[in-house]
């Protein structure tokens, strides 16, 4: 029995490289880093004074029926709304607002949120201590609860199927996409809006990560250094990426343009410590995702890695790539976008999916910025250091969240892609694909 396939028919991104998918891809492929001196707050007292910040003037969503409420929401909700509206507009999805459609056609929202409204929580506490609990803002709780991103997306766009919020730290968005994939595959839904959002550039987040010695203290322009021998920590980023996922046949029948197929997903629990990824469990997860896609290691051409320059985690992931893919005959290149946009926590999987879809469409891999030398244990692996053309059929996206949340996705060119309905796939062969 052939199973239902799921394709991406709309993309919306909010990133430190720009707030359109085109700007994002151009920044990635062009090797542009958005990491720079932190501007959102005065960071003088922190050891890391760098961040990859979204230009907030580019995110104007406080309009429509819920404009008053949206204005009071924390940034992660704004980012999700901007990305959701862009994805839906991009997809030309018919039938919104649903006006009473029942599942499966009412659609659904699956959103990954790692930390939710941490900035509002911090400000709320400070405000309470300064002015007393009586002056606490009535919108404080709604503005920061993680579910509000998915909730506002559903209300704003009129999506009347279920909405879910998944919170598994840095695997949140990957799990949201994977669960949406499985919901459509199973027939419960015919389409969904799925992805992740995160915005925690706030002092308490920096305190917390500084206490864990997780933040880089190197100079701007040289960090973060994914996979590199001299890596010393991550840089905080922010953003959102949401996608319209549709059952393949439905997308074909309505003439939707297809960015790629979401082919496989796996999520497993396991870690070497509560905040430390594990080679064995990452390998297990990657292998299961490739199997779920019905592919072999040889059919995976690139890994969009979670590596963010963390001293202990990056190496474990590289070893897992070797065991799950290279030791099984695959030779995928590995790349990390964290030198471009920093670490985006719950949005990192979705932002990597957007990067992978850009790579598939352009048959080109973005570079791992600031990477120079691989650790000796994994020297044979292929890390992309400069943007390069590549024959890309399928990409694997890997994330790890605190608490042992491993999640991986496989996306690729639809096996029966048609040139007139598929973004950029006419440039399928490396020989044909010029610079972006």
């Amino acid at each position, binding site marked *: 029995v052939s199973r239902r396939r799921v394709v991406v028919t709309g993309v919306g991104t909010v990133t430190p490289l720009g707030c359109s998918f085109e700007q994002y891809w151009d920044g990635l492929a062009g090797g542009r880093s958005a990491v720079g001196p932190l501007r959102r707050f005065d960071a003088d007292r922190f050891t890391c004074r760098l961040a990859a910040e979204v230009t*907030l*003037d580019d*995110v*104007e969503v*406080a309009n429509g029926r819920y404009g*008053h409420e949206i*204005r*009071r929401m924390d*940034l992660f909700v*704004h980012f999700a709304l901007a990305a959701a509206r862009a994805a839906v507009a991009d997809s030309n999805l018919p039938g919104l607002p649903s006006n009473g459609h029942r599942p499966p056609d009412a659609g659904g929202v699956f959103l990954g949120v790692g930390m939710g409204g941490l900035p509002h929580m911090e400000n709320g506490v400070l405000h309470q201590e300064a002015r007393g609990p*009586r*002056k606490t*803002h*009535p*919108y404080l709780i709604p503005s920061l609860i993680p579910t509000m991103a998915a909730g506002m997306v559903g209300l704003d766009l009129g999506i009347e199927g279920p909405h879910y919020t998944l919170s598994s730290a840095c695997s949140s968005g990957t799990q949201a996409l994977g669960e949406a994939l499985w919901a459509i595959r199973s027939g419960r839904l015919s389409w969904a809006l799925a992805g992740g959002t995160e915005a925690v550039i706030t002092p308490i987040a920096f305190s917390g990560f500084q206490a864990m010695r997780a933040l880089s203290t190197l100079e701007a322009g040289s960090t973060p250094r994914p996979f590199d021998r001299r890596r010393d920590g991550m840089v905080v980023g922010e953003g959102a990426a949401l996608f319209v996922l549709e059952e393949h046949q439905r997308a074909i029948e309505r003439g939707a343009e297809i960015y790629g197929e979401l082919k496989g997903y796996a999520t497993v629990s396991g870690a070497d410590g509560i905040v430390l990824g594990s080679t064995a469990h990452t390998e297990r997860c990657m292998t299961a995702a490739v199997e779920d896609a019905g592919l072999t290691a040889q059919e995976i051409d690139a890994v969009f890695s979670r590596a963010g320059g963390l001293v202990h985690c990056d190496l474990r992931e590289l070893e897992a790539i070797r065991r799950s893919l290279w030791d099984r005959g695959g030779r995928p290149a590995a790349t990390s976008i964290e030198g471009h946009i920093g670490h985006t926590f719950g949005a990192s999987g979705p932002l990597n999916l957007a990067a992978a879809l850009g790579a598939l469409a352009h048959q080109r891999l973005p570079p791992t910025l600031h990477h120079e030398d691989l650790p000796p244990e994994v020297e044979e692996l292929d890390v992309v250091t400069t943007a390069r053309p590549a024959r890309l059929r399928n990409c694997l996206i890997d994330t790890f969240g605190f608490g042992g949340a491993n999640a991986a996705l496989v996306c690729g060119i639809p096996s029966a892609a048609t040139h007139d309905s598929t973004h950029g796939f006419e440039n399928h062969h490396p020989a044909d694909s010029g610079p972006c």
Partner: protein
Amino acid sequence: MNRGAPTRPPVKTLERTSKGDGRVSEASLFDRVVKHMGEYLEMDVSHLDPNARIATAIPGIDSMKIFEMVLYLEDCFEVEFEEKVMEKIDTLSELVSYIDSKLAAKAVEAQ
């Protein structure tokens, strides 16, 4: 990017009337209350009359907006409203009278 609740404007010294009791004139205070409500709601509410019911006369108003608007008005007039009194206030005229009484009490305290 326009985010958050409107910022409270700088509090201006209220013009005192010839009553000598620290109160502003009812008409002047009514206009000020309506003006601040409009600032908070970011809409023109100058059509409201004293008998307008707060919970129903303003399009789109709900309990959350009323709670937030009360905080805003407190900051504008530098007074604190009592919860039990506010629960009973229905019309704009009642609200204005209540603010007037709080201002008068504040003026007495200042003396």
